[in-house]
């Protein structure tokens, strides 16, 4: 046998000159196998997700959207709800060492919790709180139904306090008293400032005004120029400070120390001034820019609430049952029977109410489990 002769020289030349490098470039592809156009993943190329947009998809947690916003704001959201109060006036606090501290007296009037807002149902955690009492004839029908379902008398005003998570939620219908806070605690106090009416630029924004003399004519307190002329657009820029309504806007005073609390008088005395006239409604909550109250104190207040209102949950449930009964009666135009008092729910109606309550309970259980 004879081995066929190979054209050695030509063969090698071909390989060395063009063949080898070409082979190398072909193995490393210059075009990406997965285009950015079709989305991207940090998972390996061979990973095949079974679901899209799942936590297992390998995508980083989004930095926008409700969940991200809640997480971002968690640090600046107090862990507990606050209370509503009425500004009663200012006085002085005389210290034992001779210090005289100007202080503001805030009074709590039957401050009750009405609603827990949850992440699942409302998108955030909050506690709705009501203050005072209002004549029921001044309340609209929808709100009367709301209070009826809560088992609480109509309140003068409602407000909600955002809390960091579900640990800040409270039993419904309980009263928050001044001992919700402790002496020395720092709080943020929010209220509407006094309305000043229509004010000029000097009063409203602290403009300097014009001189009194040197040929000035009838332009002593005007704002002057509203902006440059041609070349800069000949227009007034948005947000230009001008005369207008001043005051009656929400003012937050941060980190006010609490000097006194008194459950009998229902007062919380804070150091310094609080915006608004006497009778203004203020919101008091744990200071955002200070460490939250110690855990022992928080636990103690919650325990106190439980001791003072041991049957809060049962009461809410009873009120809700009553509300459902009455709701059915209103729907069926049987009001006169109820008002005269000789009404008894039939077995079917009772069953319906019972089922609705059971559904509520089941939902709650699910939430707790979640």
């Amino acid at each position, binding site marked *: 046998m004879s081995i066929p002769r190979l054209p050695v020289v030509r063969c090698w030349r071909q390989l060395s000159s063009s063949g080898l490098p070409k082979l190398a470039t072909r193995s490393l592809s210059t075009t990406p196998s997965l285009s950015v156009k079709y989305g991207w993943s940090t998972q390996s190329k061979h990973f095949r997700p079974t679901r899209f947009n799942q936590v297992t998809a390998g995508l980083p947690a989004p930095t926008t959207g409700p969940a991200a916003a809640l997480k971002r704001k968690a640090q600046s959201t107090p862990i507990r709800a606050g209370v509503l109060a009425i500004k009663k006036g200012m006085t*002085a606090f*005389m210290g034992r060492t001779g210090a005289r501290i100007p202080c503001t007296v805030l009074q709590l009037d039957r401050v009750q919790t009405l609603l827990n807002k949850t992440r699942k149902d409302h998108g955030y955690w909050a506690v709705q709180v009501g203050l005072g009492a209002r004549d029921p004839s001044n309340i609209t029908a929808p709100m*009367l139904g709301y209070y009826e379902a809560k*088992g609480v008398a109509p309140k003068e005003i409602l407000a909600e306090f955002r809390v960091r998570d579900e640990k800040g939620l409270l039993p419904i219908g309980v009263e928050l008293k001044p001992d919700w806070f402790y002496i020395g605690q720092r709080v943020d106090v929010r209220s509407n400032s006094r309305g000043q009416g229509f004010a000029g630029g000097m009063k409203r924004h602290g403009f300097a005004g014009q001189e009194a003399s040197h040929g000035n004519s009838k332009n002593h307190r005007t704002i002057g120029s509203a902006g440059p002329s041609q070349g800069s657009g000949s227009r007034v820029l948005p947000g230009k400070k001008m005369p207008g309504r001043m005051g009656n806007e929400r003012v937050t005073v941060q980190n006010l120390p609490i000097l006194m609390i008194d459950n009998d*008088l229902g007062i919380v005395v804070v150091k310094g001034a609080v915006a608004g006239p006497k009778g203004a409604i203020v919101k008091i909550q744990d200071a955002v820019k200070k460490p939250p109250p110690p855990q022992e104190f928080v636990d103690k207040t919650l325990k106190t609430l439980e001791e*003072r209102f041991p049957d809060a949950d049962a009461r809410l449930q009873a009120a809700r049952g009553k509300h459902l*009964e009455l709701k059915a009666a209103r729907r069926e135009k049987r009001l006169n029977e109820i008002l005269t008092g000789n009404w008894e729910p039939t077995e079917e109606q009772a069953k319906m109410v*019972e089922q609705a309550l*059971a559904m509520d309970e089941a939902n709650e259980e699910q939430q707790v489990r979640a």
Partner: protein
Amino acid sequence: MNVAAPLARRPLGCLKTSFRQARQQQKMFSSTSRRRMATAVETTPSSSSTPSSSSILPPLKFQKIVDRRTRTLRTAFAVYPSTTPGLAPPPPNPMPALDEAQIKRMDPTGARTALFAKTRDAARVGDVLMVTHRRGGEPFAGVCLSIRRQGIDTAILLRNHLGKVGVEMWFKIYNKNVAGIEIVKRRKKRARRARLTYMRKPKHDMGSVEDLVFAWKKARKVYATGKGGAAKAGGKKAKGGPAAAAKKK
């Protein structure tokens, strides 16, 4: 239409979910341990609603809403009482009680209050008073131009001349730094103004009260050592009045 078609098109997980929900509902409704209103009605047919609700809930009234046009009852809602034994409104004005409590704390003997009360032997505007300050070295004496009565924040304004310069000072009477207030000299006739601001004018200015203070101190010293048993009436008054009690603090 085929009912099963949309079901079949859905993934199996959906069916699983619906099965799970159905199972849970079944469990929920079949449980005998749960309290039922229907059973309660069976056992006590006379009671209208749940027995627990009537005992837990406070007595309710009905707010009737009447149709304005037809004058007929449109609807009615249960309204719970705003004040119950466990839920009472606080006193409408807490300020007097707060003042009282603070005054009691800062002035347990009541001497300071008595010195500026509206009584016959209390200090009044026009009197020459001397305030001993806990921090400042020398006591400040001067004629009292006004008394600003504001509960715990009650203050007096004293005017004197120090080195031919008029000096006025406000003192909070309940402050711990005010160690004592004494009446050096009473005004002969009751001042007919509440605030003697006119005493700042050169015509009415009292000038320095240094000599009055000196005389008073001298008289007091004599009285204290018992040399002049029959001391001046003025000195006696100043000593025996509520001012002396204030000094004790």
